[in-house]
């Protein structure tokens, strides 16, 4: 599979596999995945439970390392990076949105949004303004000083989205971002993701949500850890 446009892909997977040791036998979560995603694309990954969608997203996001094949992000071989380099890459290049929001409960909303800035090396003086700007973008400034426990599901996911955006990453990854939300708030998050894509972010989304999947120009279907041939 190659990128639709002629430029060098942002994400390039070549024969990527991931297997886990379960008991005494190896279980393959991903097999021989070859995939290019161009800069500025919106790609949705769909597939039944256990098809390897989240594993694929975690590898693309640098949270997990493949056990086979090669992954390059913007031309850089990710599997060759040290833990510190990979951490820096996650910090600067990748924004993650999780199904369970994963906000830190003892921090306020704006502090949660600031969390990536802690590890960015940027001067502390600019953190608050930057985080506030991102909260404005997701429309959550009125909740800035609240704790995550005081937020509704939609608000929590918007806070998580603001956190993913705070270092303006090129690649935005969302794992079932609407999975824990009702359809109205889910739609709201989908609309925000659409806006971010329109702003130039590359969005890779894993979802079960049919309507959300339909918004994406490019859909990749996974089954048993492998990419299914493109739908007609």
């Amino acid at each position, binding site marked *: 599979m190659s990128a639709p446009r002629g430029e060098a892909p942002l994400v390039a997977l070549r024969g990527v596999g991931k297997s886990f040791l379960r008991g005494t036998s190896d279980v393959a979560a991903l097999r021989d995945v070859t995939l290019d995603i161009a800069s500025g694309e919106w790609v949705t990954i769909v597939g039944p439970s256990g098809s390897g969608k989240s594993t694929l997203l975690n590898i693309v996001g640098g949270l997990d390392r493949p056990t086979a094949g090669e992954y390059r992000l913007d031309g850089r071989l990710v599997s060759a990076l040290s833990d510190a380099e990979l951490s820096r890459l*996650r910090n600067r290049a990748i924004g993650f949105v999780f199904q369970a929001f994963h906000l830190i409960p003892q921090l306020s909303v704006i502090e949660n949004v600031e969390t990536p800035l802690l590890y960015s090396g940027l001067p502390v003086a600019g953190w608050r303004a930057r985080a506030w700007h991102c909260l404005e973008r997701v429309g959550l400034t009125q909740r800035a000083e609240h704790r995550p426990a005081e937020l509704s599901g939609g608000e929590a996911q918007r806070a998580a989205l603001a956190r993913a955006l705070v270092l*303006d990453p090129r690649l935005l990854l969302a794992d079932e971002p609407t999975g824990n939300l009702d359809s109205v708030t889910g739609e709201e998050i989908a609309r925000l993701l659409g806006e971010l894509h329109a702003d130039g972010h590359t969005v890779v989304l894993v979802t079960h949500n049919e309507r959300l999947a339909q918004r994406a120009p490019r859909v990749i279907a996974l089954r048993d850890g492998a990419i299914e041939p493109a739908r007609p």
Partner: protein
Amino acid sequence: MSASLTPQVRALPAWPLSVPLRTLILLARRNVLLHRLRSALSILGVVFGVAAVVAMSSVGEGARREALSQVAALGIDTIAVRPAPAPGPSDGSGLVLADVESLRRVVPGSVAAAAVREASLGAELGDRRSDVSVAGTTPEYARAATLTLAIGRFLCDLDLTDGKRVGVLGAAVARQLFPLGDAVGQLLRLGDDWYRVVGILAERGAPRRRAGPIRTRDVDHTVFVPLSTLGPAAGRAPDSIDEIVLRVDDGRQVARAAEVAQALLQRHHPGAAFGVVVPREILKQKARTQRIFNVVTGAIAAIGLLVGGIGIMNIMLATVAERTREIGVRRAVGATQVDIAAQFLVESSLLTSVGGVVGAALGMSGSIAIQSWADWPTALSPLMLLVALFTACAVGVGFGLYPAWRAAQLTPMEALRSE
């Protein structure tokens, strides 16, 4: 919108700690305050460990300084001989004036010897009145006990032969009776007689008066008068004296001099017992006791801090387990392993540092309490406080290392999946 990734990643520093230390400390403070009771309980071991170190070393330091000042009060090459305290009234078998001369002659290397007769008299000056210890002695005493004058003169031979009523004041007596400092030339009433002050001694930092087999004269609180003006106590022979102070020319010979003095006096006064105070020996003996005390103190402190450290490690392991998800989130948004380890290390060090400060305060209060209630001399040295605080901080780092390492070893995926 965004610059190319590659230069951004390359531009970051090679040092893997990316969080500013100040931010780490603020974060740690917040997490410590979030569970106030738990934090307070977890540092108790360190608090008591440090308090024990501070209190006990202040007692040790106090004892050391007292030993030093006791020795300084007599001089390192001086010995003092007095009859051993006997139960009941004195049978008259004590020291006599003639003993001074024989000691001076016989004891090898002796350079000065002086007789002392003691009395405790009421001192009166206008409306000020207090009890002072009065020592009747000879001019040689100044040399034998290495006294230094602050002002005026010491007793002279003429004072002695003429029985002049003159006195030389210890520094503390002078301060007490003549707060304005114009003592020399003034008259002072001691018992029933008036004495003219002719000199004041330099401050000596005298030992505290305490019961015990060894007594040394507290020079600062003594008034020295000619021996001839202070008669012996009622019922004693007219030539009886209370103490002989002897100085030898070589400090290393004091032990030998003490033996000779002891033997000589035994021969002159068969059946009587004498105590010989050898400051140098006291110092050696105290140093030995001090070493044992230091070892015991050190061992107790080490056990206290070990227990404290284990408490900290325990609570930090629980904290890491409880905050695994947070660790995952932080790793996902860019924290390196070093960042995570540093976060928990700063937290454990903050806990033990607070424990150290509280413990030091408690130890200092304990030291003051020991001084005022048990009447033991104590002394706090700032260096010791610094060492205690530094040790507390080091316990935090030392016992926080393993939990921090455990936290750093979690992969982002494991940490995020934890429930």
